[in-house]
């Protein structure tokens, strides 16, 4: 039987890229992953377009609507002051998303840079840095955070900086550990032998190999940041009123637990779903990109 050879298919760069994308995203994520991604997209959309979405005024108290249940004139009900819960959720998403993104970026950039430098230069710098990080870790996170917030204030940016500061040790550790293993590789030695400058080695050889494992923790870290911010808001120490926050809404709802459960439950469920989605998507992406786990 004649073996008929199909003509060799020459793939364009774009096709190649598309196939790589399909290999990473196309197989085995399951509907849960897409559902979670969709939810995150909705939350991000609300945060971005809160001002233009057709919701009521989140800070306007309408006494007649006080503690309205869901599916009344307020779709998700109203809180103890008669403010629309849906509108507050949509505007509160803004706080969670902005703080989540900013705090993780701060931790990632500062912590990551310190970790790479420590792993590359070793010596006194590394030892001093690790000692300082150990000392920061000796304070329970909420204690440190309360002190920081008391010091730098309660604006959106200040809260982001304070929470981001908490993430520096963790990111520095991840970056340092990865740098240590990269620095020993032959291509770094080769670059050194060819006389490449230190900044060039750090940026061209080390960074690309460290950045992926550091980024991989980003989504899970963001979930934790949202939890931390909400705990702060619950204690009344996050972004100040009248800006609605999810944690603040839950705190407000606690007062009406006996009479109007939905005031606490609705923001709780919203936040739970968001953090769960972040954890879920983050975990899946990490195991997909983790060479050791995905058996590439």
């Amino acid at each position, binding site marked *: 039987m004649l073996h008929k050879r199909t003509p060799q298919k020459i793939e364009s760069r774009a096709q190649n890229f598309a196939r790589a994308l399909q290999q990473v995203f196309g197989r085995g994520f399951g509907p849960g992953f897409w559902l979670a991604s969709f939810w995150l997209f909705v939350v991000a959309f609300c945060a971005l377009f809160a001002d233009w979405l057709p919701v009521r005024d989140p800070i306007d108290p309408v006494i007649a609507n006080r503690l309205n249940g869901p599916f009344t004139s307020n779709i998700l009900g109203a809180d103890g002051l008669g403010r629309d819960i849906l509108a507050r959720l949509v505007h509160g998403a803004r706080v969670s998303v902005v703080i989540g993104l900013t705090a993780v970026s701060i931790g990632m950039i500062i912590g990551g840079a310190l970790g790479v430098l420590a792993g590359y230069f070793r010596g006194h710098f590394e030892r001093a840095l690790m000692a300082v990080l150990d000392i920061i870790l000796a304070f329970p996170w909420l204690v440190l955070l*309360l*002190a920081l917030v008391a*010091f730098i204030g309660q604006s959106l940016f200040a809260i982001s900086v304070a929470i981001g500061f908490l993430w520096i040790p963790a990111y520095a550790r991840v970056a340092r550990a990865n740098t240590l293993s990269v620095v020993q590789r032959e291509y770094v030695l080769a670059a050194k032998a060819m006389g490449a400058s230190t900044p060039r080695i750090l940026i061209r050889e080390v960074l690309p190999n460290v950045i992926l494992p550091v980024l991989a923790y980003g989504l899970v870290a963001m979930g934790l940041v949202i939890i931390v911010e909400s705990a702060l808001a619950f204690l009344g120490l996050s972004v100040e009123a009248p800006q609605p926050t999810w944690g603040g809404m839950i705190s407000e709802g606690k007062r009406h637990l006996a009479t109007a459960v939905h005031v606490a439950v609705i923001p709780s469920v919203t936040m739970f779903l968001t953090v769960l989605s972040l954890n879920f998507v983050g975990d899946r992406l990490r195991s997909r990109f983790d060479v050791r786990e995905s058996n590439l």
Partner: protein
Amino acid sequence: MKMLLRKLPWLIGTLLAVSFFTFMLVSLLPGDPAVLILGAGGVSPEAVAALRLELGLDRPLLIRYFDWLGSALTGDLGRSPMTGQLVMDAILARLPVTIQLGLMAIVIALAFAIPLAMLSAYFAGSRLDRTISGVGFALMSVPGFMMAIFLILIFAVNLGWFPATGWIPFSVSPGANLKNALLPALSLAMIELALYMRLLRTDLIDTLQQDYITLARAKGMPSWRILTRHALKPSSFSLLTVVGLQLGGVISGAIIVEEIFALPGVGRLLYQSILQRDLLMVQGIVLFIATAYVLVNFLVDFCYSLLDPRVRYSD
């Protein structure tokens, strides 16, 4: 013993740095303590200056630090200018509540995490394993205060089994004390539980693939015995370490949970002191907590090397 001597300078250095960091953190807080104590409005500058002199605020920062550290070493953390109470007394009076809460939370978390993790690891990949892991995953997405609110909603508001707030000392009525402590401890435990379970499961799966487990199985040893005697023991070391490291999380959780349930613990004292800007109190409590945390982890590390020959010899 040799290891203890070698690690001692490191411990002392850490504690010194922690105390300095605490002092700076609180000293740099905005607001003049003297003005805060006297009340903001309508106080003569002379009165403020006199109080500053009395509190020693006119002296350089470093001298104040060493002064404070020196008395802290003798157990004197100063006297709160707001309540007139000795800081150390205030902490010690509230310490039993927080310790009881933390211990109960850790015990509850371990009591559930260990059997569940063993089941999960033994039937790794099964439907049971996926259910347990899934629930653990969900639990990790719930903040402590949310857990507390839902426990209050279910067990205090709807069922009325436990009180929503309040505290009765163990010495007055053990039964009522436990009834009051259960919900707060449970809300702290739930989050720790998920973390312990996840870690122990991974650890156990790893251990179960070792040769000596296969040997024990070949000898015909029953599965539960293999799990409890051969598999759990090596994993218990890493569990111990995590419990030690997670103490910071438990303390952070205690601040919120004590506030929600209105328990007279150290965490609530700290929160209230921060709100009232009682700086000396804040300083004392933060130093106390951080020192306790460093010491406990040092002890855990030490016990670890005493119990585990692998660490002892490699060191």
